[in-house]
Structure formats: structure tokens, C-alpha cells
């Protein structure tokens, strides 16, 4: 979403209390579901954006995640399975003044809605897409999804899946989204930052949220959330900083022969010599290399911003084109419309 960072926020007017964004509907996710955390963080983010509440429109598809709009007291459209990006595109193009979010899940965005998902990324319409990735179909009670780990046992894969999973961030990067990030339900502060950055980005922004489904896929991210393992397994990428992780911040990524390798660091290591994260660089090779760590068991899983680049938005280009044509041909009137082409008169007697 766009925002002039210099504009002062009138806190009174803008309902900055997160609770001001609760609807009268009680959230109906299972107890312990990661979706509660995402909702709570979103309620903190929205009041900070400097956008009046009535300008927010949340559009969703079908699935556990897609109930999300009902629990916010903004405008909301609970659409059909996989098609939220299409509806949201129409809304944003028709009224660019609105601040439009798409709430989706791994099945919704990457299976049934895969086509819409890649095309919204490609067009760079100023919409924020948030994908709750629990690597399972929850609402339909436990079938494997397009992001499920290979070999996973589920209701529809009793002998283990034989399909390769999508890595959502990788798809978004490849499809050309101009802002791509990942966060996790158990890191609320990090999530607030990612959601805020995504919302403020002008162009299609994509945030994958690792979300635990305690009912059908419990613990799928436990390595990344368990205090015993998370420091070794989770890499928090920060702009301009080296990739440091590990129990005692004792590991770093090093760039060697076009590959990442893990090296030990200590107080004596010259951090300046290490490769640093550049979220604005837009260098595909590096972005994809970072993303590929997700499925490499020897490397930590990165969260943070993979890409944040500037590019004209679809709606800005469209409006510019309309204005250009108007400048060239003048504002069209029905008079002109009816009388263009080959016309002739038949006179009455």
C-alpha cells in the first residue's frame, strides 16, 4: 500500500487502538491455531498505516485462512476458492484509492488459484498478498497441499506424498512480485514488521507466513520455533547486515564459489568481510539462492525480506495511459461515440 512517510498520522481519527479493528464476529479457528497470531499482528499493523479504516478491503478465497476478513471490521469479501487475486485486482483497478489485501492459504493460492497468484505478482498491482502456509488442507480436514513436505502422511497420502512441494516465496519471486517476504506465526514482532513493510510497499507485495496447524499438521515448523533449535535453524535476514545465526550467534553464511556455506564466527571475525543482505538489490541469483536454503537441511531457513524493489504499478500505468489517450483524443462523449464511423441521414418527408 502506498503511504507518504512524511505525513503525520492523526491518531485520534485513525483509530490506532488494535481493538478498534475487531469485528463483532468471534474468531472460529481451532484453539492454538497460528491464524490467531496473524490476526492479532494485523490488528496492530492496520492502525499504524495512516489509512482510514473504511479504505481497507480484505479479500479472501476459501480455507481456514480465508475466514480472516470476517474478524476485522474493515470492508471484506469472502470470495471463492483460489480467486481472491482476481476479485482484488478488479477492486484495486476500479478504485486505486482503496488499500487492498488478499488473504490466502497454500492450497488456495498455489493449487486451485495458482494461475491468479502468478499473474497478480506479474502485473504488480498495488495489493498486499498474505499467504498462511500450514502445508496442509485444514478446512477439508487434512489432505496434503502443494507445499506439503515430500513423503508426508496425510488423509489423502496414507503412504506418503510423492509430489515435490512449492516454496511459495520462490514462486512469488519467479512471478515477479516486487516485494517478497517471509515470517512465522511465533515471531510476532518480526511479523508486525513484515506486514507493515508489505502494506507500505507500492506494488504487489507478498508475505508468506509460516503457520502452524495444531490439528492436522502440528509441529511442521517446530525446528524453527523450538528455543532449543531455532537459533540454529532460523536465519533472520536484515538489510545491510551479514547473515548471522546460531545458538550464540556463532555462525554466518559465506559466499563461496556461487554458493552459500556456513562458517563459524566469533568476536574476532571481521564482519565487514562477510556478504551482507541487500533487500533492494533485486539480484535474482542471490534471491533464489537464499530461498533455496529453505529445502536444504544443512542450511538455516531464512525469514525476512527477499526482495523489495520499485516498479511502476499496473494501476498507475493504466491511469497514465487513460490520461494520455484523453490528452490525445479528448474526453469521449456519447455525442462523439454515436457519430463516429460512417453515418448517414435519412430525411423524413
Amino acid at each position, binding site marked *: 500500500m502506498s503511504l507518504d512517510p512524511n505525513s503525520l498520522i492523526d491518531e485520534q481519527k485513525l483509530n490506532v487502538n488494535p481493538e478498534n479493528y475487531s469485528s463483532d464476529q468471534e474468531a472460529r479457528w481451532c484453539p492454538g491455531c497460528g491464524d490467531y497470531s496473524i490476526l492479532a499482528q494485523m490488528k496492530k499493523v492496520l492502525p499504524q498505516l495512516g489509512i482510514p479504516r*473504511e479504505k481497507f478491503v480484505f479479500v479472501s478465497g476459501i480455507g481456514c485462512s480465508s475466514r480472516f476478513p470476517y474478524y476485522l471490521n474493515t470492508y471484506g469479501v469472502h470470495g471463492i476458492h483460489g480467486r481472491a487475486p482476481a476479485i482484488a485486482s478488479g477492486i484495486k483497478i476500479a*478504485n486505486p484509492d*482503496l488499500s487492498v489485501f488478499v488473504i490466502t492459504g497454500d492450497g488456495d493460492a498455489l493449487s486451485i488459484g495458482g494461475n491468479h497468484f502468478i499473474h497478480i505478482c506479474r502485473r504488480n498491482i498495488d495489493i498486499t498478498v498474505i499467504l498462511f502456509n500450514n502445508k496442509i488442507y485444514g478446512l477439508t480436514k487434512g489432505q496434503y497441499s502443494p507445499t506439503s513436505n515430500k513423503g508426508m502422511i496425510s488423509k489423502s497420502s496414507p503412504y506418503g506424498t510423492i509430489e515435490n512441494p512449492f516454496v511459495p516465496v520462490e514462486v512469488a519471486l519467479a512471478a515477479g512480485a516486487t516485494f517478497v517476504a517471509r515470517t512465522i506465526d511465533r515471531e510476532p514482532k518480526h511479523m508486525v514488521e513484515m506486514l507493515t513493510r508489505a502494506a507500505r510497499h507500492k506494488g504487489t507485495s507478498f508475505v508468506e507466513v509460516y503457520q502452524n496447524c495444531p490439528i492436522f499438521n502440528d509441529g511442521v515448523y517446530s525446528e524453527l520455533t523450538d528455543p532449543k533449535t531455532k537459533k540454529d535453524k532460523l536465519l533472520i535476514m536484515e538489510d545491510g547486515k551479514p547473515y548471522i545465526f546460531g545458538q550464540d550467534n556463532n555462525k554466518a553464511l559465506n559466499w563461496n564459489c556461487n554458493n552459500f556455506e556456513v562458517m563459524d564466527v566469533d568476536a574476532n571475525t571481521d564482519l565487514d568481510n562477510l556478504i551482507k543482505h541487500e533487500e533492494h538489490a533485486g539480484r535474482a541469483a542471490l534471491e533464489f539462492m537464499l530461498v533455496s536454503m529453505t529445502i536444504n537441511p544443512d542450511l538455516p531457513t531464512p525469514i525476512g525480506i527477499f526482495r523489495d524493489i520499485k516498479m511502476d504499478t499496473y494501476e498507475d500505468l493504466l491511469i497514465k495511459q487513460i490520461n494520455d489517450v484523453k490528452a490525445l*483524443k479528448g474526453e469521449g462523449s456519447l455525442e462523439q461515440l*454515436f457519430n463516429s464511423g460512417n453515418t*448517414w*441521414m435519412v430525411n423524413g418527408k
Partner: protein
Amino acid sequence: MAKKNVQTLKSVTIRFAGDSGDGMQLTGSQFTNDTAILGYDLTTLPDYPAEIRAPAGTLFGVSGFQIQFSGQPVHTPGDSPDVLIAMNPAALKVNLKILKDNGIIIVNRDAFQARNLELAGYKSNPLEDESLTGFQVFPVDITTLTKEALKDSSLSVKEKDRAKNFFALGILYWLFTRSMDSTMEWIKQKFKNDPEYMDANIKALNAGYSYALSTELFATSFHVEKAQKKPGKYRNVTGNEALTLGLITAAKKADKELFLGSYPITPASEILHELSKYKNYNVKTFQAEDEIAGIGAAVGASYAGAFGATTTSGPGMALKTEFMGLAIILEIPLIIINVQRGGPSTGLPTKTEQADLLQAVYGRNGEAPMPVIAASSPADCFQTVFEAAQVAFKYTTPIIVLSDGYLANGSEPWWIPPIDSLPEIKVEYAKDPDSFKPYKRNPETLARMLALPGTPGLEHHVGGLEKNESGNVSYDSENHDLMIRLRAEKIKRINDFVKMPELVGPEKGDLLVVSWGSTYGVVRTAIEQLLDENKSVAGYHLRWINPLPKKLGEIIHNYKNVLVPEINLGQLIKILRSEYLVDAKGFNKVRGLPLNIKELRQAILDILKG
């Protein structure tokens, strides 16, 4: 110079036919323009091969263009041509069977050499054997004569050859005692930056005219009588152009931006092409990634306050089905245009058919009532889509507008309505947070309250799950039953707003013909002919198929027999039978072509005989 006669005719049907590369569509449309400017009534039908570049000389590569014109009202492009212009043997072979007895055939004799004859499957040259007896054949060396006329031109042989369609047009202008001014003007405009081409085409046109004038071959030319048409300004439009104009006009009259979400598909793509040119009319066109996203974006745009529309043909309708269900439960104004083509599946993409009617009326999951309106002629597409828009906003509903391949590409003069004569389309949105409930209804129309995102205090949720009046999800069984009945009742009430169709013929009698969509012209012509012959027959042409006209049940039972002609295997007839328990008979031809007047007349006469 030979002495020539002029013969006067009431109405004429001409068919231009040749290879895709022979320029017959252009020749046809030039002749059409001239015909229109002269004040005749007319209807045209182009007939393209499905392949973009079909091999030259083959039967399936033949491209045709047919026009019927007259001083009297013309409702169809004509069953069988009086005049056939055949630029090669294949064009002759394909079209001969529909030509009128003793009809005129003008052929390009140069094209009748061994290779082309073989491609067309002729064992011997039809110009030299007996196979064309019963027709008036005029073999003209069009290629040679065109080359001769252009011998001073610096164009290549191939380029010169391309001008031969203008030579043929010149012959026709002479044959119908016309001046060539309109085409001259057009050539000068079109080729103003290409003086060589301009010169060549003008020379070819003149040469054709002079040739016809001077040769002994043509002894008679024709004059078609003119009659007074409704005074006013006219413009020739195809159905797709009329839909485009109608959409823009309706959006303007509703004071809204027009948003078209669409995906390319034959024969609906022209609407997308046309609308994308009209950016300065507050038109936003969105070429979506697929049919589904096309309607999805239109739903979103309509929700956000634009005039939302989507255009497609049969296969695309199948894909849009789920979104239509959403639009129905959202109760949101939306125009869904289906330019029907031959089905099922990919079927006959470039041909016409009426076989998507049941899909339009019933083809969704759940109780999903959808208003359906069908255009009856190319120019009528304008009024049809305009009326659909009025209803969509008044009753907060999506609407399916049915056109078809024949209307889409066919053309006729459109009487340009004075802009003030078209009503404003009133659209109301909720403003007051205290009284706002998303599914609170207008007691008269049952339209729901719409509120635009961006309006302070009216934040609410809509969606595919069943809602109660307050807009909250409701699994309550009584509420669901109520909402289903309300949505159905709302569509019925559209009848309070729309006009009933006009009954043609006596109010009681032996036979009522009930028709819909593009068969209007054929059915009307057949009925008018039979009424002239004092037959006890009447016609009722439906505009809205859902809801059906209030009085139709009554009307239908005033006749001993009911006949339903359709370009499908009997779809409207199923609806009428189930709605009115009437033993209606069908007249069904599914050939990818308009119905044939002669055949329909015969079917009517057979019923009248009993």
C-alpha cells in the same frame, strides 16, 4: 457499346466468395457501406474459415460475405443468393448449392485452371461442362483484366493481383446502377500514404466498371427500389460493435467507469478489442489471465463501484460459472455477455448456435436464479445490453446477455438514438450507518442495499457463504430458505420493469411461433409472408427468457399449436413445456448457420395442415 436494359427488383441477396486472401470481406463491406449510405435496409453475414490462413484454393479455405438489401425492412442476410461472385473453383463449389435457381454467377475465369479445379475436387471445368445449366454464368478474366489495367503501375505482379477484388466490385457497382463515390473516397483515405496502392485500386475499380459497361456479356443491370426508412441518422453496426456501444452508453448513463474483465475468445474478442480503444471514455479493460479471472475482476470492480462487465463465448461461460454463483449471492450488478458459438467443447468456434440457453438459465450449482436477455439482431444488441444494465442496477443482480456468432459478425443499419432519449440509469448506494444492513431490501424490487468500500461507517462483509439480513454468515435453515426464495422472487419482479414483447399476428389462432435471440429475422420474415397469405399464425419473440413474460402462459393457450424454432435441439421448448405444460413442437437445425426461411415456412405449413 452494347444496348443495355435496367431491371427493377424489390430485394437482392449477393454473396461474395473467394480465398481468404482474395479480399472478399473487404469487397463485401465496401458494397455494404455504399448500400447503407444509399438508404436501403440491409443485413449482412460474413462467413470465415476457422483457420486463420487456410491453404489457398481449398474448399475449407473459402471465405464468404453475404448481404441482402431492399427498400423494405430486411430481417435476414437472405436464404439463397441472387448473385454469387466466385473468385475460384472452391468458392463456386461451396456456394453453388445455396444459389437461387437462375441466379447470377460471376466467376474469375483465370482461377479455373487445373490445380485449382483439382483442389476444389472438380473432375472437369464447370465453366465448360453442363454443371452450371440453370444459372446465368458470367465468366470474366478478372486477374488478366486487372493486370492489364495496371500495366503502367510499378507494383509487383503479386501486388497488382491483390487489386482484383476492386475490379470485381466495379462490375457489381455497374450491375446495380450505383456510383462508385463512396468506395473511391474510402480508397483515398485508406491509402493516403501509399499513392501506388491508391492509384492501383482506383484503376482496378474503374476498369471493372468500364468492363461491365462495355462488354456484351452483361446485357442487363438492376435497380433496387428504395422506400422511406425511419428518419434520422444511421450507422452500420455489427452485433459486437453494438454491444460495445451499448456498454459504453450504459456506463455513461449510470455515471460510472466501465470495467471490462475479459479473456480472448472467438467470436467475442472484438468487444474486448473495441472497448480497449475507448480509454478516453472512462473505460478500463482488463485482459485477464483466464476466463475465471475475467469475471472475477469484473465482480471486484462492480463491488468497488464501477460498471462491471465480462464478455465471452460458450467454453468461457463454463469456466465463469462458479463466479456467476458468487455474483448471485453477492447480489451485485454485473453484465455477462455470451456470444454463443457452435458447441459442445471447442465445437465450431466461428459458427453460430443457440445451444447455451439452458446453461444460461440453469447452469449453476444451487438455486441460482439468473436473468437472461437475448438480442434479436445486430443493431438490437445495443438496446439489449442497455436494458440489461438498467435491470442489473435496479435489481442488484448479475445478468446474462446472449448474442451469437451470427449477430456478432452480421451487420445492419443502426438508427442512432438521440442521446437524451436514453434514460439515465440510477444507482443508489447506502450512506447512512444507522440504517445500513447489507441485505436489507427495497420492498418493491427486492434489490439489496449496496455500500461502496471507502464509505465511512459502512464497513461490512460480503461473500459466498449464506448471509442473513445483517450481512453475517448464517447457517440457519429458515434463513437459507428465505434467502433462496427472496433471490428467486427478485428475478421474477424484473417483469414489473421490462416491456412485454409484441405479438405479431392474430390474438387467437391455429399456431403461435415462440422464438428468441438471433432467429428473430428469419421467423419474422416467415410469419409476415404467411400472414400475407392469410394463414392463421402469430409470432411471439422473447427478449427476456428469465423471467419469461408475465402473459406468456395466457397467450400460449390461445393457439391450437405452438412451434419453437431454435438453432439447438430444443432448449427454449423445454422451458416452455415445463413452465406452461404445453405440447409445443420444435423446429431445430444445428448447422452452425441461421435458420432457413423456406424450411421454416414449410414446417409451419405442415403444422397448419395438421
